């Protein structure tokens, strides 16, 4: 799995802990990581992802439907799921303020035995912590 992930573009290093089943990925400086591609790479290596958390820096905006999104690159954004913390981000939509947030991007459905992550729906960013506004 470490080799599978290490081959993905934008990956600087991969650290795997067999004891607690955790995988830490450090992106390259200014690298563009593709989280769905990482999920697929893990699946292809024979294990399943229970959950994925990311820490990202970007700007808050609204998409064409008016939903909040986190823009991390000109061509990469994550739809933000609504929760108490996402409400704190609403006033920042369209502002030049950059924020650093930690959130959950994927969680395997409860009781689901199927290993392959469902990629038919876009990943939604569930904000867990707002680390920095600047």
């Amino acid at each position, binding site marked *: 799995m470490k080799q599978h992930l290490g081959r993905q573009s934008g990956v600087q290093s991969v650290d795997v802990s067999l004891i607690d089943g*955790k995988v830490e990925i450090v992106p390259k400086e200014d690298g563009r990581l593709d989280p769905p591609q*990482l999920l697929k790479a893990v699946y292809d290596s024979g294990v399943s992802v229970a959950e994925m958390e990311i820490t990202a*820096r970007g700007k808050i905006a609204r998409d064409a439907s008016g939903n909040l999104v986190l823009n991390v690159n000109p061509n990469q954004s994550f739809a933000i799921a609504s929760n108490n913390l996402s409400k704190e981000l609403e006033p920042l939509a369209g502002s030049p303020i950059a924020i650093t947030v930690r959130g959950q991007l994927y969680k395997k459905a409860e009781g689901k035995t199927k290993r392959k992550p469902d990629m038919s729906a876009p990943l939604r960013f569930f904000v867990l912590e707002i680390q920095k506004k600047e």
Partner: protein
Amino acid sequence: MNSKKFALFALLVCALAPVSHAQVKHIQMRVEGMT
């Protein structure tokens, strides 16, 4: 003229710098079925 170009360049750098620093900083996954 040069100072005008420099001012324009500085404005562009200020406008684009925050975007270039926007990125995914860290990813952590919990996996199942690993031996």
